[in-house]
């Protein structure tokens, strides 16, 4: 038995099976969440490349598998990433039924997670671009449900994801040239420019970030947030693979400076736009833009320590802590937004005005998740941001000012949402209208936000 069989082929097969039985929405959500949770626990507990014994039976567990002449490798040092991915998947699938994310959410979601895991496992790792592209294709039915008009956001998402992939594939060839002649500026530029374009398209980096907010407005909030959490997250981890594989990249200060600058621009633009936003869905999109910017900064603050999984420099710890806090906050935010969307005509400020009086727990969850992503103290997003600001301050104090300005913009957006949600035209009484399951899920989500804030990972 091999690790890729367990963490890639098995969930992939299950995704197909769940697709067949997608009409049984509750059952598919339950099975999907349970299996994802079991895979997370296995990744946490079971050492890869070891002899596993079950009573009298024992078998060798290998970390690699050959498929069509290429290798899928899930080495022992990837266990934490695997566990993190499947734990977050279980968390999202757990709320899928109550969020009314649609019958396709769990089967396609599991398929996407499988493909993205394969993207992290494939060797040579440049072929990961193909898996990411197929995952993006698979996201389309999730984001644009049958019977729904196709919006511009989904078309832009499809366009940018597709345009980015060939750049990465082309880089695969160019990068060997750059490695062969270290210090040659021309080869460096020829490689780094297409690579930069490729990742800018895939990661929704400024100025190719417009689809994020458009998608968050058009698509179901739960599906949109799931894709906005997973896709940029895995693409970023894929990007880290370049630094691990090519010494000339991690020894190039200019790359880290560009990453920091781009990140700061994204935080400022995302935060600035959030401050003036009047749509709850788009607000979530801008929060994601800010968070992607912070992830870029977290990679950009790397200072000469091995960036690989073995090294775990502060920048990488912050990167993964941001990833986890983003997953938590977006999950809670999206579930609460789905609840609000069910009871209102839309999600513009005019349509949700005063809905907090009717759905107080959902409103509280929206605001707390929003504040967490803005880095409010005691919430999940605060510790990684604090650590990030500390590291960034030692490198570029001016950047801190701009990042704080962006974060305040996002916080201002949260305060405006709070005002709109609680101030109805009529003086309606406060009443809890959420059902028990929603109260439990939202309560657990909010508790998790506080717990991650009080017991930080960094």
């Amino acid at each position, binding site marked *: 038995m091999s690790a890729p069989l367990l963490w890639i082929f098995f969930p992939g097969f299950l995704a197909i099976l769940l697709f067949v039985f*997608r009409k049984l929405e509750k059952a598919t959500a339950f099975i999907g969440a349970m299996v994802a949770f079991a895979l997370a626990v296995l990744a946490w507990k079971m050492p890869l490349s070891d002899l596993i014994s079950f009573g009298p039976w024992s078998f060798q567990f290998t970390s690699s598998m050959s498929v069509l002449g290429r290798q899928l490798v899930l080495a022992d040092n990837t266990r934490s990433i695997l566990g993190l991915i499947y734990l977050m998947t279980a968390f999202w699938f757990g709320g899928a039924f109550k969020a009314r994310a649609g*019958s*396709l959410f769990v089967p396609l979601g599991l398929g996407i997670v499988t493909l993205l895991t394969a993207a992290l496992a494939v060797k040579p790792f440049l072929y990961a671009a193909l898996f990411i592209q*197929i995952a993006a294709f698979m996201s389309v039915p999730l984001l644009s*449900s*049958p019977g729904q008009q196709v919006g511009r956001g989904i078309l832009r998402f499809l366009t940018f994801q597709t*345009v980015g992939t*060939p750049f990465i594939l082309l880089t695969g*060839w160019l990068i060997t040239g750059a490695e062969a002649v270290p210090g040659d500026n021309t080869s460096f530029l020829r490689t780094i420019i297409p690579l930069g374009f490729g990742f800018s398209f895939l990661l929704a980096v400024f100025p190719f970030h417009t689809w994020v907010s458009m998608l968050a407005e058009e698509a179901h909030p739960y599906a949109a947030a799931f894709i906005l959490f997973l896709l940029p997250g895995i693409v970023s981890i894929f990007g880290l693979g370049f630094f691990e594989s090519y010494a000339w990249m991690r020894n190039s200060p200019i790359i880290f400076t560009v990453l920091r600058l781009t990140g700061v621009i994204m935080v400022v633009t995302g935060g600035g736009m959030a401050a003036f936003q009047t749509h709850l869905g788009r607000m979530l999109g801008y929060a994601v833009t800010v968070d992607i910017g912070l992830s870029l900064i977290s990679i950009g603050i790397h200072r000469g320590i091995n960036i690989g999984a073995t090294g775990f420099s502060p920048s990488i710890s912050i990167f993964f802590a941001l990833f986890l806090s983003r997953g938590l906050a977006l999950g809670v935010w999206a579930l609460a937004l789905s609840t609000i969307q069910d009871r209102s005509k839309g999600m513009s400020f005019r349509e949700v005005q005063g809905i907090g009086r009717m759905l107080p727990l959902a409103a509280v969850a929206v605001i707390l998740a929003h504040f967490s992503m803005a880095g409010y103290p005691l919430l999940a997003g605060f510790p990684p941001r604090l650590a990030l600001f500390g590291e960034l301050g030692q490198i570029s104090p001016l950047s801190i000012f701009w990042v704080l300005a962006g974060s305040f913009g996002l916080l201002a957006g949260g305060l405006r949402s709070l005002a709109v949600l609680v101030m109805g035209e009529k003086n309606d009484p406060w009443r809890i209208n959420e059902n028990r399951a929603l109260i439990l899920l939202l309560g657990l989500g909010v508790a998790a936000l506080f717990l991650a804030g009080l017991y930080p990972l960094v």
Partner: protein
Amino acid sequence: MDLNFFSYPAVILVALTSLVLLISVNWRWIILMLALQYVGVFFLVSLRWPVEMAAAVIVAGWMASAVLGFAISEATTSIPSVWQSTEKFSPSGRLFRLLASGLVAITVLSISPKLVEWVENIGIIQAVGASTLIGMGLLHLGLTAQPFRVGIGLLTFLSGFGILIAAVEVSALVAGLLAIINLGLALVSAYLLLAPNMEEAS
């Protein structure tokens, strides 16, 4: 088999087909031109790849054209207004597209020699063909918000990159991957064309 003789006609073919794809409003013509475009791409790719590998490009391309053809045919049958209302552009709109194509042509002529310097193993013919398709694909994408046209624009763009990648890497796996991306894109575009008329899944 030496197909070098066809390289110049192939560049002219991809340039003409990409131009017709941009200015035509008749979906039948568009599908036909897309299929023809893949013939040109096949000849340009076969300058570096063995014919049997290059054949994967044309087969995948024709399959993608067929998928899109079926989807647009179905979509226009069920609600013709969706395609026609967004696709009626005036003669001045067509002139604008022609002029924009002229700008792409100027850019192609200026950057192709640079591309030959930058990318080893690529000839000027392949460079012109690749940059024409990439440029026209991007122009197409910049001028539309219609799923069918977005699919056509992306397929054109990918064909251009396919020529570029074929010049630098002779690999059956790469040929397979590009074929999968082309087919996947056609299927997704077909879904987006038909999705508004489908019943809700849940």
